[in-house]
């Protein structure tokens, strides 16, 4: 006798399988990137030709450091999601596809962490 519910048996078997998370994450980061991008462009225009003291004053405020960390986290999550789809579309050799996906995912994590550490060092003056 099968004790599983209809829903439990059907879950993960549709054409989408586990892809829904990826799709939803891409949409969430898209929406977040709209205001974050406008803030980013505004901030970068303000820092054109800035010297080190101006930069430290900018990065030293709580709001700017917070927004920059949020921006970088969202940016690299979104970048990884986008590049993943491009690789899945065009790379059809299985080992090369998997290897590329791993490199891109860890690359995005490393770059995001590098940016976050830089922002925190600037904010805390370390």
């Amino acid at each position: 006798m099968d004790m599983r519910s209809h829903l439990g048996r059907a879950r993960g078997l549709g054409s989408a399988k586990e892809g829904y998370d990826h799709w939803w994450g891409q949409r969430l980061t898209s929406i977040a990137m709209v205001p974050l991008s406008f803030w980013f462009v505004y901030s970068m225009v303000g820092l054109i030709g800035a010297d080190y003291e101006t930069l430290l004053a900018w990065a030293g405020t709580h709001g700017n450091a917070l927004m920059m960390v949020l921006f970088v986290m969202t940016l690299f999550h979104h970048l990884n999601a986008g590049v993943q789809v491009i690789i899945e579309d065009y790379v059809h050799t299985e080992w090369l596809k998997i290897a590329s996906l791993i490199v891109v995912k860890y690359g995005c994590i490393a770059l995001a962490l590098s940016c976050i550490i830089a922002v925190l060092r600037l904010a805390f003056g370390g």
Partner: protein
Amino acid sequence: MKAGNRPLSPHLEAYRMLPNMVLSITHRFTGVGLGVGALFLTYWLTAAAYGPEAFARAQSLMGSWFGILCLLGFSGCLFYHLCNGVRHLIWDTGRLLSKEELKFSAFVTVGAAGALTLITWIAGFAMGGG
């Protein structure tokens, strides 16, 4: 993956190029361009954390003709990807999908991206930078 004897869908070249196909592939290209921009941002931020000399080098690189050309490209990519991305989000709700709406929203997307890029650079030069 072996195709075997399965029927294949007609290849891309069988279709006449339409504006929406250009906008669609441009969305992907600008996304990749922004990935390169993310590398620039990482270098700039890391240099800033490294110290005043490294930051001054990064600033002068961004202010060189090569840097300005790259930043011009990144800003154009950003605003195109942003505007067309919003168009995608609207499509996800099932709206704006008729033939006329597709054509009209394509014009709005390209126009808005161009205008935002222009405004950004006018503001940039008004800042006394460049």
